[in-house]
């Protein structure tokens, strides 16, 4: 993994490329791939698999007696994710753009399916579809992508055609409507964490689209009003309110609501500079942190790999985000800019929220850490996003 970091550094963006990429020079594909993003995502997935393994090898009630159950599945998920990325590359920027309405429709159909008896509830959120073979799907993960794509398509259509410098109000309104529909459905599940991510995505997309400032501030105001309304109308379930209460005052009930946060903080804090060593963490081995292979996977890194490991994960995610920002700035059309910016907003918020809650600076919500947390849907969606970023990068003129 560290090797991966180093190779990013030597193969920095620009004319001076590392020798090993020249092998693919004539091919063009390898030449135009964004290697830092790809390698960082791979490194995170691999590191994630080890952390997931560490957290689950003793949890016999979860791993059905096979300590490698989650490790193997994490790899499998990563493999499928990489395949999805390649699929996106194969479709290409343009192919994807034409497929947007189909993808959007499919994702909305899936989240509607969750509301039917086919859906199932995990941790208070009715946001899963059980599949045969012990697999389950969380369609809200895919909705994050299709919202980005759908909004980008609408907002960029007139601008990319050269008709207007910025999307007009009507287009913005249409785009918002396109986003709000699935968001309302997800809120009904209720999967508050995903809704929060989607709100941030919408904000990021509007920002990048060049929509009028009024929309941005109006949306921020509406978001605030909506939050108050949600609180007042009692749409939130009790467990969600408790999470916020525990965030506001972690000492509130260390055995109950505050337990997650407390144990997470103890695990991370006890890691020190270099951690207790991979698979050596007593908090992890003792299973003191709930949901440690999914939402709280960062605590494993914190305890067993210490500050070095935690900073590495943040750094790898930072590389992906940095590169994605560059792709947003370098794309030739607004559509690409919006898609890249949407992905940046999504990844950035989800990273901040996930790690932030384990560090006690954000309330607890059920959001996975991109690439690292165990979970198929999230893994597929994030790798699909990598595929989108790569396809945007590919269609950039070579001269750039």
């Amino acid at each position, binding site marked *: 993994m560290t090797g991966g970091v180093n190779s990013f550094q030597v193969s920095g963006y620009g004319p001076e490329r590392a020798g090993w990429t020249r092998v693919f020079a004539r091919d063009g594909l390898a030449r135009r791939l964004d290697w830092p993003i790809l390698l960082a995502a791979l490194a995170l997935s691999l590191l994630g698999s080890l952390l997931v393994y560490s957290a689950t090898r003793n949890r016999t009630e979860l791993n059905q007696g096979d300590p490698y159950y989650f490790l193997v599945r994490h790899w499998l998920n990563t493999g499928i994710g990489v395949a999805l990325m390649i699929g996106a590359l194969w479709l290409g920027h343009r192919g994807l753009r034409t497929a947007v309405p189909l993808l959007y429709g499919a994702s909305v159909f899936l989240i509607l399916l969750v509301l039917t008896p086919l859906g199932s509830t995990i941790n208070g959120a009715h946001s899963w579809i059980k599949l045969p073979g012990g697999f389950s799907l969380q369609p809200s993960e895919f909705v994050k992508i299709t919202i980005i794509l759908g909004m980008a398509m609408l907002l960029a259509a007139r601008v990319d055609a050269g008709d207007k410098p910025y999307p007009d109000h009507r287009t913005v309104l249409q785009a918002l409507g396109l986003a709000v529909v699935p968001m309302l459905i997800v809120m009904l599940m209720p999967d508050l964490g995903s809704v929060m991510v989607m709100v941030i995505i919408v904000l990021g997309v509007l920002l990048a*689209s*060049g929509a009028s400032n009024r929309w941005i501030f109006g949306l921020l105001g509406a978001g605030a009003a909506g939050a108050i309304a949600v609180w007042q109308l009692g749409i939130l379930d009790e467990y969600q309110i408790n999470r916020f209460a525990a965030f506001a005052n972690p000492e509130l009930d260390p055995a109950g609501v505050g337990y997650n946060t407390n144990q997470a903080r103890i695990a991370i*804090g*006890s890691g020190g500079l270099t951690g207790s060593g991979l698979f050596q963490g007593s908090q992890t081995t*003792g299973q003191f942190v709930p949901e440690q292979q999914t939402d709280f996977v960062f605590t494993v890194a*914190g305890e067993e790999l210490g500050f070095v490991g935690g900073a590495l994960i943040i750094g790898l995610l930072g590389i992906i985000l940095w590169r994605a920002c560059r792709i947003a700035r370098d794309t030739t059309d607004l559509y690409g800019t919006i898609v890249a910016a949407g992905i940046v907003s999504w990844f950035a918020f989800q990273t*901040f929220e996930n790690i932030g809650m384990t560090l006690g600076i954000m309330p607890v919500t059920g959001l996975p850490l991109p690439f690292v947390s165990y979970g198929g849907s999230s893994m597929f969606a994030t790798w699909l996003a990598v595929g989108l970023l790569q396809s945007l990068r590919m269609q950039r003129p070579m001269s750039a």
Partner: protein
Amino acid sequence: MTNIPETGRSPRVQIRLVVIQVLVISLLGTLGGRLWYLQIREGDQYAKEASGNHVQQVVQPAVRGSILDARGVPLADNETRLVVSASRTDLMKMEDDGKAVLTKLAGVLGMKPQDVLMKVRLCNAETPQPCWNGSPYQPIPITDEATPRQALQIRERAEDFPGITAEPQALRRYPSPGKANTAQVLGYLSPVTDEEIQQAQDTDSPYLRSDMVGRSGLERQYDKQLRGKAGVTRYEVDKLGRVLGQAEADPAEPGANLVTSIDSRVQRIAEYELNEAMKEARKQHDRNTGRNYEADSGAVVVMEAKTGRVVAMASNPTYDPNSWVGGISAKDYAKLTGKKSNYPLLNRAIQGLSAPGSIFKVIPTAAAIKAGYTFEGPYNCSSAYSIGGQVFKNFESQNHGPISLGRALEVSCDTVFYALSHEEWKRDGGNKPKKNPNDWFYKVAHQFGLGEETGIDLPNEVTGRVPDRQWKADYWKANKDAWCKYGKKGGSYAEQIAYENCLEGNRLRAGDSVNYSIGQGDTLVTPIQMATIYAAIANGGTLYDPTVGKAVISPDGKTVTEIEPKAHGKLPTSKKTLKQIDEALEGVATRGTAAWRFGGWPQDKIPMHAKTGTAEVYGKQTTSWFATYTEDYAIVMTISQGGTGSGASGPAVRNIYNALYGVSEDGEIDSKKALLPTPQKTLPKVRTDGTITSPKIAKDFAKEFRATPSPDAEATTPQGDDPADPQQAGTTPSPENTNRDTRRGRRRGGGPGRGGGHPRGRAPRPRAARPERTAS
């Protein structure tokens, strides 16, 4: 699609993309900063919390060491009970949570399966008793009354009983060998307090919640040695309490054994004789108060004269130390400490205070020599000594004429000491004291070790008091306000005394010095102090720290740490003076005040020395004191409100000597019957397996050495019921009807017309019962 050149992108979008990028970077920076704060800055704190999370301790208590008598007979040991316990952590690993095993166990133990199952469940708000209230990692006792057969069944079929242990466990026991109770010397245990746990937390021998701690006596003094070290096994556990692996295990180290110099047989006799003497005293009529003696408490000390080791130490009333074992009941506790209890927990041998009366007289004798008077004198033993208008009478107004100091000791002549003490008081300036008064009589008392602890290895020894100038000044300062408020000129006796104390209580008055010279007034001593002094006279002048502990022997018997006798001073007398005092005290036993108690004693073989004392206490009956010694032993007995020295305590002390030396009533020495003709030199052996070689103690020795009531004893009754009792002494008392051993002091001279300006005898404080002047 139209290719819009990059430069064609609107600046608004470009700026916003930069904003997004900055936002992203700052979010990641926030995470990194927070991570640094938690892991680097606060990391140690969290590491500590984490280890508290996942380490559980299981404690094996250490077996407390035994307290043995000089021959190895256990005075305090541990009763072994077979305790069957279940390990919850092991049971919970089984598929049915150990139900099958526990049911099988119930069958072996003859218990109902339901009862066993209930015992291992953990207590919580909804679970009623029975349930386990302790740590779930500690083995849970199922029964402590398993038979060896049951234990064997469980152990032999260990594979059938996983998680079940049948092991002997120790409970403190005070076996009272041969009925020797020794309660106050042994002390007792009680559970450790939170405070003590807190204090000992970071020391090398921390307390466990289940620990018992010595609260008094030897159990407290030698607690550290006896306690041993508990074994601790630290398990790493997961969130559900499942053991992940054994981290480390320190085995329990049993406590060391304490060998004492107590001989349980002599101890028993001392206790028995003290009790009998008190019972006898209660039958005697006290002419002064018009009722029988109360004999409310008493103490006796048998000490090795040449080492200061305590062979026996009894305090009465006493109690059963076993009542503390396994937690004392509220009823028992009230019985031991309540207002009506007469405080049996007090060890009156080291905590009982009273005026010494005439057994004090060896001190003014030594002081007089120091002050330059000769031993031979002669000094006039007149019938009374008067100061100003006040007359201090000799006992029964006896007049012995001019005698030596030795003879004054023998007949316990008060007036000789009155005169000497008064003379010294005058030399020191009388009512206008010199700048640096000699204060021989007080200085020497301090040099004899009075007014301070003897240093015995028992907790809470009291110091007593030498009523010297310093004390008077301090005491007056502390009390003058009360005196001045209460005192009234020409009021009642108590008011009058308070009035005078208010005026001049800070000064050493003539009457004070006179009373003091015969061990009265404000003088207070403990039996152990007097035993130490008389042992010193016996051994040539060395004041030893009395010791009960003789050696600490490791549980395997390999390490023996002897507790050597230690001296805290020398008597301030020359060899010659000491010899003269020694001869005089022998005279007390042969022809003086104690002679009637030692009729037929084989004096030529075992030279006996004695001094009697009867101290007057304001508002109470007289205190009986009897101090004696031979070459090897010193015995001091006292009975509060018990009558005269030789009268109340005499027969008891004689009986103890009889037992020690095997002397029969007619003076024959039967060496086979002698319990301890010379002090025990060797230590008992502790074998490597921890067992102790000790002689069997099966019977009660006490009555065997009991003197048959002698004609002498009968003779005491008519004459021995008054501070002035058996005194018939003429100038040459016969061994048969010897001196009185008690004297009373004052007859007030001036009568109603006595003037306020006259120096007065020491007067009692109004508020407290306290020694008054007397002599014996």
